[in-house]
């Protein structure tokens, strides 16, 4: 899919340039952009290292566990088919906490662990997603962002005066999106339950 989009951008771009007579501008733009990409990374790399280093220290000090403890009641409510003391609960909690803190590299292994645990609870066919799995995927794809670290770094690298000014707006927007996502998942589950009766 991404392959097609990339191809279309390039081909349509050059095609339109043929009509508008901007072949020279296209060449310039392509070369300048490839240089700009490296300049962006040079600005970004140090900030990423600082940010991820700091977050690693936070992770080690039990920040994720603290957040997971706060979120535990929510997970019980969202996953009625998972027993409260099942190992899946721990993995789900750690995954969501890592996602909220913007720790992508810590979130994925925990997420895969959670999927394995949920698979052991899958009531029907192992090739069909269980309701708990769908809920977990919804939580993952619409996760609330407490600190969008990468974007703050990218904004700082691009010369923003106030790189962190978008934090409150991002928190608000992602929270509302998460409520809608979880709400949609809940609605589908209720609908399925009624149909099964």
């Amino acid at each position, binding site marked *: 899919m991404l392959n097609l989009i990339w191809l279309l951008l390039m081909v349509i771009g050059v095609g339109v340039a043929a009509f508008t007579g901007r072949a020279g501008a296209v060449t310039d733009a392509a070369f300048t952009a490839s240089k700009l990409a490296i300049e962006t990374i040079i600005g970004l790399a140090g900030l990423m290292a600082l940010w991820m280093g*700091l977050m690693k220290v936070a992770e080690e000090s039990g920040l994720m566990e603290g957040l997971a403890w706060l979120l535990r009641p929510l997970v019980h409510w969202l996953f009625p088919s998972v027993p409260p003391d099942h190992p899946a609960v721990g993995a789900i909690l750690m995954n969501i906490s890592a996602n909220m803190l913007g720790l992508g590299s810590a979130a994925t292994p925990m997420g895969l662990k959670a999927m394995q645990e949920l698979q052991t609870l899958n009531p029907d066919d192992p090739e069909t997603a269980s309701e708990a799995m769908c809920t977990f995927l919804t939580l993952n794809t619409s996760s609330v962002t407490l600190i969008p670290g990468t974007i703050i770094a990218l904004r700082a690298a691009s010369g923003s005066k106030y790189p962190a000014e978008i934090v409150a707006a991002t928190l608000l927007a992602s929270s509302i999106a998460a409520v809608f996502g979880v709400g949609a998942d809940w609605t589908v589950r209720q609908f399925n339950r009624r149909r099964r009766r």
Partner: protein
Amino acid sequence: MVDTLSLWAIPAMLALIPLWAFIRKVKVYDRFIVGAEEGLQVAVKIIPFLVGMMVALAIFRASGAMELLARAIDPLTRPLGFPAEILPLMIVRPMSGAGALAVTADLLKTHHPDSYIGRLASIMQGSTDTTFYVLTVYFGSVGVKKTRYAAAVGLFADLIGFLTALYACNWFFR
């Protein structure tokens, strides 16, 4: 008050996180180095995405194709209040995290990060997620083939994320 808070947010984090971790008996510098190395790896990994996306978008823009697209979808985006420049980000976002980051980097460089489009792109990037990627990796890892309604709900959440990002941006910055 708010200004002081945002002025001190980063310095406070820089001091308090290591201090708290030290009290909890973490080897703070050692862990920082491990994390910083991960950060550098992430930065290196997104370079090819950045080059590919920024070049393609630059060609698309320099040729005049972006203006044509903007004019074509104007009747659709104007009532909602979306600037057309943001469209590539909305298309790439559910598919590739690094790709979307590259599109955002391009928008921040082209328009300024503190411009309306720059802020909107930043908020959108943070309030939506790579639905298709998560779906493929997570379900693939346990051999689930029938994903039922998961993709629909995930994309619905992304769509709401785009809309709330737009309203949040207007509300906070206009």
